[in-house]
């Protein structure tokens, strides 16, 4: 009996002791939901958001699913954020078309939403009869084109390339694939286009398989850095690191270290911290009743990073290491 009561007490004590201090009060609460937190890219975004939130004196509540593709978990988080009484929501959706019921709930509750990084499909938003949602993020098509042009330069205009794509159904996945393909089309031969769902482990496995099938591969474009790091491991293991060029996307700290060390050859930098900051600012403005242009659409820049300019980027990112 006492052991059992003790066990129950232990559960409670564990929860109270470790999380109790997290509860605090502020006038305005903004909910911030990245696709996941198990990716440095989103951690950097959250750091930017936190900085801006503390400047504005608002409470930021950050919640995210375990992996990059959990639409169901994101819907649950939106519902719980609404219950928690947030005044505005910043969302990086795990699907461009699949979170409409969550947006509907936020709209019904009168909570403004800012769309960050991965854009909601305008068609889906209109189809669901929702109000337009402002967006802040990278023009991924354009960023991927930079990667494609760099690929042409690295290969001298000819060779075989493979593309690692992200979670199917996300706008980013499409834009990055298409941007790269349009830049290299007719010049380079695309021998493989495989999804690795933005994950390191899958990037590793898929690259191993691609290398098996295409021993004369010239370049891999991994459309995010997680997958690029996985691909790099596979290249190293196969002893092909010097033969095969590798381009990543996002410029997360781990990938930049690799660019510096000569592992990843080039990387398209995004500026997630700016997205996090801009998102919180806009959420703050909307929750305070300022009107935002209905079709507000702001692109944060992209920049091609190579060994020449990697140090500056690393220094910049150090401002946002958690």
């Amino acid at each position: 009996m006492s052991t059992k009561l003790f066990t129950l007490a232990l559960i409670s004590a564990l929860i109270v002791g470790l999380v109790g201090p997290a509860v605090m009060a502020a006038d305005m609460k903004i909910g911030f939901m990245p696709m996941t937190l198990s990716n440095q890219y989103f951690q950097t975004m959250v750091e930017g958001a936190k900085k801006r939130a503390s400047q504005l004196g608002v409470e930021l509540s950050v919640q995210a699913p375990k992996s990059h593709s959990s639409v169901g978990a994101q819907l649950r988080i939106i519902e719980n954020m609404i219950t928690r009484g947030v005044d505005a929501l910043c969302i990086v959706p795990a699907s461009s078309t699949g979170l409409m019921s969550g947006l509907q709930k936020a709209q019904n509750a009168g909570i403004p939403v800012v769309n960050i990084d991965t854009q909601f499909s305008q068609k889906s938003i209109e189809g669901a009869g929702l109000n337009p949602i402002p967006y802040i993020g990278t023009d991924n098509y354009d960023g991927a084109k930079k990667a494609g042009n760099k690929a042409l330069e690295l290969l001298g205009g000819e060779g075989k390339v493979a593309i690692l794509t992200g979670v199917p159904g996300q706008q980013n996945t499409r834009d990055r694939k298409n941007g790269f393909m349009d830049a290299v089309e007719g010049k380079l031969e695309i021998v493989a286009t495989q999804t690795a769902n933005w994950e390191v482990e899958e990037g590793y496995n898929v690259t191993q398989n691609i290398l098996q099938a295409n021993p004369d591969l010239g370049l891999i474009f991994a459309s995010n850095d997680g997958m690029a790091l996985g691909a790099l491991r596979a290249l190293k293991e196969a002893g092909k690191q010097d033969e095969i060029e590798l381009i990543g996307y996002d410029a997360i700290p781990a990938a930049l270290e690799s660019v510096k060390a000569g592992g990843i050859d080039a990387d398209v930098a995004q500026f997630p911290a700016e997205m996090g900051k801009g998102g919180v600012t806009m959420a703050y403005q909307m929750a305070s009743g300022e009107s935002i242009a209905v079709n507000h659409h702001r692109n944060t820049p992209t920049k091609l990073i190579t060994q020449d300019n990697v140090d500056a980027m690393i220094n910049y990112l150090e401002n946002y290491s958690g």
Partner: protein
Amino acid sequence: MTKELTEYLPNDLLEKYGIYIGFLAVFVFFCFMSPNFLSQRNVFNIIVQSSVIAIIAIGETIVISTGGIDLSVGSVVALVSVALGLMLISPLPIFLAVAFSILLGTAVGLVNGLIISYGNMPSFIVTLGMMSIAKGAALMLNGGQPVASLPMGFDKIATTDIFGVPIFVVYVIVAYSIMFIILNKHKLGRYIYAIGDNEGAARLSGINVKKIRTTSFVFGGLFAGIGAVMLTARLNYATPLSGSGFELDAIAAAVIGGTALSGGKGSIVGTVVGALLLGTLKNGLTLMNVSSFFQQVIIGTVIILAVFVDKLRSQ
């Protein structure tokens, strides 16, 4: 009732109702920790958020009670979800698409059961294989792409209210009531526990073990199919990536609710409380703004503690 209660010492009370007391403790804890927790709307939220797992966990509880395990239910959710999405935009009438979807889930369960029973194979291996097959099939059906813009009216399956009560709450109550009666009043229930308790003895006493075992997996597939329809309607969106990890949540709900992985012992009332406990933790911890990493640690701890308490009380 009062007479029965007085017969119990507090000790027995805790033994018999450990999971319910644990659930209440967690619930009360959140009431104090988060001002937004205790409202009718949030309580409905918790039930709705737990309902897909609660439904899938019915089938899982039955399978585990026979001493088996069904690892394929999460992938079956993905498969049924995409199939349903494609049928809906084909466009099949909503009623037919839903009926075929549930049938598809049931059929996968039947295949599992037949291979396991008549091929004399371990359920762990067969359903592990089916997990991969169903996932692959889900991805193949629409080339890995999700199916969005489902027809108007389909999401009514999820968004309808009955006198202010979300319809998912009604589904859960109806499904559990029916299965409670079948498992407790019908001989099928006795056979299921008999097989899980001692398969040899069950066979000797004339129970058709193969048939009952197959039936248990049919239930596994049936409820995965129903869960898939609910999830798809809730999201109004069908994706082959849905359902991943659901098998583990369903197993956790059953085990927290007192179902023994060794078979022979299980209660679906415990299971629904198990599913609600998991849902309450995810909800309450989010309301308290606990980091999503730490939430996983807490939930894992609760699962281990629940089984630990269960082990104590069965000694």
